[in-house]
């Protein structure tokens, strides 16, 4: 049995179910309790679970992530919420130097199974509140970095992240919390924290994206289908460990690849995917791999300027035409 729910409710269900299942699971973060969470994911949780398990924290990202790591070592299952991914930079040292390293550096003696939930997104929020840094975390061995696009994945991944023994960077997106999708009814519905998924089959071009970018890819694919161009759309879902084989298999079929990402392209996921695909499937490629990303400027506030910076569906369509040689190559993004 499955029900259709929102992405936000999928997250809420995952947290509630895991908190009922395991007393050691607790939440901490800025404004997750009395305020209800800046994206309302934890609304009502303080009333339901009490302040011991739903902890409002000071605005101190490094401190609360570090405390999450320590609590995890001490036997708890912390879910730390960082209000947005922009603020994760303040906690980067704890995430990169500690969470990611303890299991290896101390020879497997112990792990820090902390889940760090955070949200990417934009919407006239200006230069410091509109970023997306998933590839910064995906760079680091020892972290699992998931960025679900659909409610089913949001729930299954979050439950697995809480039950698993690795540190997980769990990245949501402020503009897809209201998206709806089917979610299984099973309270033990878990998804392994790896593996891309082909969400739309096609023969002409492969489009890879994740999180909100997946919806751009899907929108472009539907538009192009009206002209008879069949795009295969892959939702990457997990950025580390990276399931490049699913992408390679698709490229071996379509021979063309477009990567869609929301942030700057320089040294980002698209660059990694393009490098990996040419290593594994060079002879299958019929066109240079195209990358769609944002304009390489800090995000401006004004609506018209912001629109120029953030990638859109039309750019994805253009990129597909480019790899099909239906138009002259131009820099996109």
């Amino acid at each position, binding site marked *: 049995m499955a029900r259709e729910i929102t992405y936000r409710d999928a997250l809420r269900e995952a947290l509630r179910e895991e908190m009922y299942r395991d007393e*050691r699971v*607790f939440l901490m973060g800025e404004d997750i309790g009395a305020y209800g969470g800046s994206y309302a994911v934890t609304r009502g949780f303080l009333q339901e679970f009490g302040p*011991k398990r739903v*902890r409002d*924290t*000071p605005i*101190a990202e*490094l*401190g*609360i*992530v*570090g*405390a*999450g*790591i*320590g*609590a*995890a*070592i*001490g*036997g*708890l299952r*912390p879910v730390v919420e960082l209000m947005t991914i922009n603020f994760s930079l303040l906690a980067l*040292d*704890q995430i990169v*130097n*500690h969470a990611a390293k*303890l*299991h*290896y*550096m*101390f*020879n*497997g*003696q*112990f*792990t820090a*199974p902390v889940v760090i939930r955070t949200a990417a997104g934009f919407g006239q929020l200006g230069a410091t509140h509109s970023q997306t840094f998933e590839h910064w975390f995906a760079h680091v*061995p*020892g972290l*699992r970095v998931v960025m679900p696009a659909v409610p089913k994945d949001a729930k299954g991944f979050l439950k697995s992240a809480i039950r*698993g*023994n*690795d540190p997980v960077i769990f990245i949501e997106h402020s503009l897809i919390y209201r998206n709806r999708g089917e979610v299984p009814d099973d309270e033990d519905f878990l998804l*392994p*924290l*790896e*593996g891309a998924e082909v969400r739309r089959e096609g023969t002409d071009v492969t489009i890879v994206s994740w999180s909100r970018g997946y919806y751009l890819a899907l929108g472009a694919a539907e538009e192009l289908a009206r002209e008879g161009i069949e795009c295969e759309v892959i939702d990457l879902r*997990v950025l580390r*460990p*990276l*399931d*490049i*084989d699913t992408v390679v298999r698709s490229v071996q079929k379509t021979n063309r690849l477009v990567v869609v990402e929301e942030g700057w392209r320089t040294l980002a996921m698209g660059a990694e995917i393009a490098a990996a695909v040419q290593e594994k499937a060079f002879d299958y490629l019929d066109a240079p791999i195209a990358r769609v990303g944002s304009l390489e400027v800090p995000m401006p506030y004004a609506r018209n300027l912001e629109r120029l910076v953030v990638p859109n569906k039309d750019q994805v369509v253009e990129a597909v035409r480019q790899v099909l040689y239906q138009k002259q190559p131009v820099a996109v993004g």
Partner: protein
Amino acid sequence: MTSTVDGRSPGLALPKSELLEMYRRMVLIRRFEEAAAEQYALGKIAGFLHLYIGEEAVAVGAIHAMDERDHLVTHYRDHGYALALGLDPGRCMAELFGKSTGLVGGRGGSMHFADASKNFWGGYAIVSGHLPIAVGLGLASQYLDERRVAVAIFGDGATNAGPFHESMNLAALWKLPVLFLCENNLYGMGTAVEHASAVREMARKACAYDIPAERVDGQDVLAVYEATRAALEHCRSGKGPFFLEALTYRFRGHSMADPEMYRSKEEIEEYRRQRDPIVLFRNRLTQEGKAEAAEFDEIDREIDEVVAAAVRFADESPDPDPETVTDYVYAEPVRVS
């Protein structure tokens, strides 16, 4: 400042065997570190090597006061804590040698000793970065109602960094059982306290967070022991964190690469002559009639053998198996490539 040099010390009432064991562990740390310096010069140890010589009384006094269930996280000058905890000197030396038999299989080196079975959750090498981890350990203890104290040991340099202040605030806000034990050895690497901290007395920083604090003579092992015991009792009784500042001094350079341009030879000599924690403790025990010269000498001889054996063990141990280089990146299996 708590000191026992001129006054009575309840610590002296400890059984003789315990007092001598404290002496023994201090000597063990001293000789171990000297041997490590030699082995570094011989090229058997590489990378960074930070010696604890001069500060032995802090590790031994504090750890002797801890319950074995208490948590410990420390900074990177961490050999002394491992030895004070009673970890095998051979495995400690093997870690410095980067051998498979090392405390963490040769993956950590000098700065990253750990032993989960002793609740020693590691030496951390990002200054002040381990303090939030201690807060989390304290949180776990409170959450699970375990009455374990999380002890965080750090240097004076750490108190100027953001993580220190975030950790102090969180620990005090949530009344967590965390003992902040600051080893003030007067220098953060090569920068003197007065050039790095607006406040010379680290303990005064605790008042910003309403955390009770105390300064203790860090060259006096019994003073450290007593102050730590009282501090732990405070934390264990649910009153929240405590801040203890141990005044100490590093007799050797910051690391093996330190030319020590920032402090005078005279200053170092004076500390070595007058403030050597091992000499002070031995004299004290002698004056108090707790032990005789022959007993100390016997311990010294035994430690020489223990350290020589540790070096031999490290030298003869195998390198880590190359096949294991990718082990432990993740705790859960990874299937995709």
